[in-house]
């Protein structure tokens, strides 16, 4: 009679793993074995539930009303922008690609549409990291379908591919389609109110399709990068290096960026073949990226020395309150999860690209007077992604039982952001000052940079709390975020032009249109420079003041919230 048997053996008595490929002799006792779904069937079954999951996640945060409002708002903004197109391209410039004085060319406008879309999608497509996070957190109070391959007969690669397509479809429905609808509405006002809108109805499907391809391109490049990163070395070293190199090559104009933006080419050429090849390539690359994701569900059990107490000790400058304890805990999470490396690299790459470009381009000859002060405000914008990342590091539900409140955790995350990134930003701005030989504006640049960084992260934290990733479809939040960031940023950016070639400031577009990179002007107005400094410092002071107010108001907005991300 046979019964279950089990026994431990010593390591020395174990056999070589590859000694035999023979069956161990188990049986299903003649029971017909089930074959798990594969291919298209598995994809469809997974995609359908993932789409529902995504929709509900967003509705839960933004509430159904705001979810409907967001695409409506986008459509409205696009409608107004469409009406305004005639002022941007000039009445006579409609549907032409010729350069017009005091106006943008259609190609420039198209470029202005596709490049930000690519940047946005690059930031949203790190699916391999998301999958790992979902897996690590599957035993927490929230579980997601992306982690289901651990338990269900579904390959991890298929789950990731379905997730990629789901995100693409979701963004197309909630962002791109409302934009096209808005363009259509704007064009519709032609006949109703006699406004001249230099746009053809026939161009709308092309614009929609071209934008879909640009979105897919950004998502898939980001997906590929994260999937390669998860494969470990050498990709973790060569990946970021090649991104920096590629960024510099594009930045210095060795490769035309319009050539890289497939969507832009589709819109320009209106070529079905390019469109199909571009779209299928993106989906194909998405499938390839998903195949790089292996069925690894190991959540390492690694014994480590106490990190919390040393970390707490190092944070003595934060006093003895709860914030210091939470910040120490956040740092432990960052180091133990390995996220610190990914975050620092992803924060540094764009800066390294900018620095590399500054090395290769002589800005004194550039038509737009970009200077050290022009860079300073933009550094703050990277803070949004960084803060978002910090909020998904760990599930904070356990804190509901502790004597702390949500605003304290939010503040701790803002502090962590500042502690980790401030030195990188500082090094960047000093190196840039050295490269551009603009030491006199360095102190102001540092003030502007820090004020803007603190403000943007404080604003993000105040508006979105612990769930910034889910706030992007919340119309009411995004309106405030847009107003709160674009206005001061634009002010700082424009004022920064007063610090160099001020005659060019007044007429840079005309000069650049005529002479391109050969445009020159050399008048230097000291009064304007002084006013510019005062203006920038005033805005920075205001941003710091606004940050302090937001810091205080955090309690009112999030004081009664529960810990949930």
């Amino acid at each position, binding site marked *: 009679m046979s019964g*279950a048997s089990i*026994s*431990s053996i010593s390591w020395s008595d174990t056999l070589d793993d590859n000694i035999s490929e023979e069956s161990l002799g188990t049986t299903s006792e003649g029971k017909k074995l*089930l074959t798990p779904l594969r291919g298209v069937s598995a994809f469809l079954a997974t995609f359908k539930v993932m789409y529902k999951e995504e929709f509900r996640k967003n509705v839960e945060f933004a509430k159904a009303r705001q979810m409907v409002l967001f695409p409506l708002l986008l459509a409205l903004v696009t409608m107004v922008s469409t009406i305004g197109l005639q002022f941007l391209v000039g009445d006579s410039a409609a549907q032409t690609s010729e350069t017009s004085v005091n106006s943008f060319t259609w190609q420039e406008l198209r470029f202005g549409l596709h490049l930000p879309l690519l940047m946005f999608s690059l930031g949203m497509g790190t699916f391999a990291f998301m999958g790992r996070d979902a897996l690590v957190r599957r035993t927490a109070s929230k*579980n997601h379908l992306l982690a289901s391959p651990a338990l269900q*007969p579904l390959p991890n690669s298929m789950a990731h591919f379905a997730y990629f397509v789901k995100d693409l479809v979701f963004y197309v429905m909630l962002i791109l389609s409302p934009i096209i609808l808005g363009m259509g509405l704007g064009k519709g006002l032609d006949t109703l109110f006699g406004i001249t809108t230099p746009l053809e109805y026939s161009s709308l499907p092309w614009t929609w399709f071209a934008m879909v391809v640009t979105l897919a391109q950004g998502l898939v490049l980001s997906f590929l990068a994260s999937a390669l990163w998860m494969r470990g070395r050498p990709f973790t070293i060569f990946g970021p290096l090649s991104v920096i190199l590629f960024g510099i090559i594009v930045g210095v104009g060795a490769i035309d960026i319009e050539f890289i933006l497939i969507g832009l080419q589709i819109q320009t050429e209106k070529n079905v073949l390019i469109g199909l090849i571009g779209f299928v390539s993106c989906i194909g690359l998405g499938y390839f990226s998903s195949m790089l994701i292996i069925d690894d569900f190991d959540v390492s059990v690694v014994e480590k020395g106490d990190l919390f107490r040393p970390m707490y000790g190092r944070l003595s400058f934060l006093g003895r309150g709860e914030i210091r304890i939470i910040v120490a805990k956040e740092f432990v999470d960052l180091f133990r999860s390995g996220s610190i490396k990914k975050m620092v690299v992803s924060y540094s790459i764009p800066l390294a690209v900018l620095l590399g470009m500054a090395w290769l381009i002589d800005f004194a000859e550039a038509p737009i007077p970009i200077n050290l002060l022009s860079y300073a405000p933009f550094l703050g914008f990277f803070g949004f992604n960084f803060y978002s990342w910090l909020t998904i590091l760990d599930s904070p539900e356990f804190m509901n039982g502790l004597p702390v409140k949500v605003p304290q955790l939010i503040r701790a995350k803002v502090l962590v952001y500042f502690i980790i990134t401030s030195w990188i930003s500082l090094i960047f701005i000093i190196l840039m000052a050295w490269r551009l030989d603009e030491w006199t504006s360095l102190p102001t640049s540092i003030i502007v940079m820090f004020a803007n960084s603190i403000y943007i992260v404080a604003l993000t934290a105040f508006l979105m709390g612990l769930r910034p990733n889910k706030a992007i479809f919340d119309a009411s939040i995004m309106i405030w975020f847009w107003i709160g960031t674009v206005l001061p940023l634009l002010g700082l950016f424009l004022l920064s032009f007063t610090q160099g070639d001020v005659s060019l400031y007044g007429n840079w577009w005309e000069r650049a249109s005529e002479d391109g990179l050969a445009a020159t002007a050399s008048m230097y107005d000291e009064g304007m420079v002084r006013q510019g400094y005062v203006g920038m410092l005033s805005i920075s002071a205001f941003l710091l003041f606004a940050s302090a107010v937001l810091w205080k108001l955090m309690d009112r907005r999030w004081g009664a919230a529960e810990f949930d991300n």
Partner: protein
Amino acid sequence: MSETAPLVKAVDMAKKYGDFIALHPLKVEVHSGEFFGVFGPNGAGKSTFIKLLTGQLKPSKGRIEILGIDAIKHPQKVKANIGIVPESESPPSYLTPVEFLQFVAKLRDLDEVDAKVEYWMEWFGLEDKRNTMCKDLSKGQRQKVMLASAFIHKPKLLFLDEPFANLDPIYQRKCREWLLSHVKDGGTIFLCSHVLEMAERMCNRMAIINDGKVLAAGTVRGLKQNIEETLEDVFIRLVGRSIEDVESSPTDVENEEE
């Protein structure tokens, strides 16, 4: 029990994380119609054991075969043909119980999915929660959904990790009786727990593990040294810690100055 080939077999199976050994090499065989339990204190390696056998983890060493399928090479095929109830994993938070059960049934390409889903929804008393997202269910209800997802294809082989941890006594009994009848009908169950009462009530064979090593194995009665000895006594004797040891353990962490 008849003389048959095993349903579960692992040879030299071990799991290491760096220098940390979660499970020392072991060999195991489980045959059809058995209710086999692995018991041990917290952190003994029980969950790692079950995850290795079910294809959730890859072993650092050894070979694993389940129902004639190589579990290392074809983990999805293994997962399709067994039922797994994990210790602490919940169903996806933003799906309803019905949607989740339909999803797991479809992945296995089952027939009559709706009928099967309805049957288990009713069996677990979840009919009035059919439109509630899993995140809004109680822990016990989520556990019922996970149990239903493991039972839905009536697998011959079930792996259960602390399956009754969050269930009320009524459903504990109902599940226990179903599992016993499943074994009677030719099913096989591999259970991990630290609740020794389950061994007494359900298992025909058991093993006690600690620190990733098998300390003893056999029938429940066979593990007792004498008739007075309880399974708890056996457990404490084998694990090597007495109640006095536990009580004398330092519990206060010294408050250190920075």
